[in-house]
């Protein structure tokens, strides 16, 4: 029998390799995020006070939207070329392979966002003392995006017109994340403790990472039909 760890690592290795060979697809959601964030000063005016006030919400809403753009890739190519079937026939429990896919997605989409987060904060004039909390909300929140996103993609991967439907399914489910993440940053901006909302986001992360693989497994069973 193959070690579970081997399969996990092999899946991660292969998918990272595949993604690195189609770099444009990797960069597009990131550029989208930057553009959306820079649209807001143009839309509401460049006053530093207004910008600082709406910054937490803008950054998080934009992050949600750009995450929706990149989610498709989670299973779609695998579904088309049959790699998904092969993944379901691996000699390990499917939850493990699903977690590997979620991990890859996080590495490829969330890590770059974490890297450019200071840039976004800078653009929107977010006070420097709140940067740490913003970064923490993204660190804990993005795994939730990847895990919940995997559920949505698993359910819609066999459909041709999955894109808009995916957002309709996922965004309502992600509202609590948005609420607590922006609340944490806002608390930090006004010098209050952000520990409460941050702890809740951490709880969401644990909850989604433990429960999502089961839902994804069920969803993939329906889609591979």
């Amino acid at each position, binding site marked *: 029998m193959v070690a579970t760890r081997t399969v996990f690592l092999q899946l991660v290795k292969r998918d990272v390799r595949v993604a690195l060979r189609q770099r444009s697809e990797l960069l597009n959601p990131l550029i989208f995020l930057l553009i959306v964030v820079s649209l807001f000063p143009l839309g509401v005016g460049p006053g530093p006070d207004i910008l600082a006030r709406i910054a937490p919400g803008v950054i998080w809403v934009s992050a949600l939207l750009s995450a929706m753009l990149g989610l498709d890739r989670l299973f779609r190519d695998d579904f088309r070329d049959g790699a998904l079937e092969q993944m379901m026939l691996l000699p390990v429990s499917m939850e493990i392979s699903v977690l590997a896919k979620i991990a890859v997605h996080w590495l490829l989409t969330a890590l770059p966002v974490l890297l450019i987060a200071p840039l976004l904060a800078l653009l929107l004039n977010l006070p420097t003392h709140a940067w740490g909390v913003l970064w923490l909300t993204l660190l804990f929140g993005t795994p939730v995006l990847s895990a919940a996103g995997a*559920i949505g993609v698993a*359910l*819609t991967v*066999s*459909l041709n*017109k*999955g894109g808009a*439907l995916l957002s*309709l*399914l996922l*965004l*309502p*489910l992600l*509202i*609590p994340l948005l*609420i*607590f993440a922006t*609340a944490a940053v806002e608390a930090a901006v006004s010098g209050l403790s952000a520990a409460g909302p941050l702890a809740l986001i951490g709880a*969401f992360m644990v909850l989604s990472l433990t*429960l999502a693989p089961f*839902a994804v497994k*069920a*969803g993939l069973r*329906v*889609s591979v*039909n």
Partner: protein
Amino acid sequence: MWRWLHPYAKSEATFALNQKLLPWFLIPGLVLTIVGVIWGLAYAPPDYQQGESYRIIFVHVPSAIWSMGFYVSMAIAGLIALVWQIRTAELALLAIAPVGAVLTFISLFTGAVWGQPMWGTWWVWDARLTSQLILLFLYLGVMALYVAFEDERAGGKAASILALVGVINIPIIHYSVYWWNTLHQQSTITKVITRFESPSIAPEMLWPLLVNIFAMMALAGALVIMRLNNELLRREVHRPWAQAILNQEKKENQNAV
């Protein structure tokens, strides 16, 4: 559990049960609605703060309660469909979804209409209205996912999974929205209604409210049963039992005319 459910995996048995249940929902539903509406509109005393406008509560609160309740029952149907692979449960889920969505819409509409005279605006980002809005999105997601599938079985299963994921999320959404609302203080419908929901509410107002709550449940339940029966017949239209029932109905209709 399975043994108890198993007979209703057969469409025919479910259909027969539904036919028996339908009058028990429909007749009390109609009677209670008439009683409740007249009582609420004409006989219940006016509110000392809001005057007559509070009478919207007699449709707003029942629809808000049951929109949530129907979502939970939809998710239970989804759970049964997934765990025991029972197709009639999938059909039940699909029968509940549109009725629940309409209930949610009613609660949103009546909430907005109530907000206008109270605060001079059609929409307030109030905790109750906001979480109802999100609930409407959840219903729409379940229905949209179902219709997106070519294969009805696959669509039913996918919708079941989504309903279950949603029902785990509903309490989280609900409490997060209420918490968010207290964070951004506003005068809200929620506060107005919690005043009515407290035990100190006058019995002259409470009783018609309770009657209306039950009336709406019975009526909405009857609608679900009708939809479920339609769905059962439609899926099995080539089967002898369904054809027998449809032929029978046709004859009755002709006799009536």
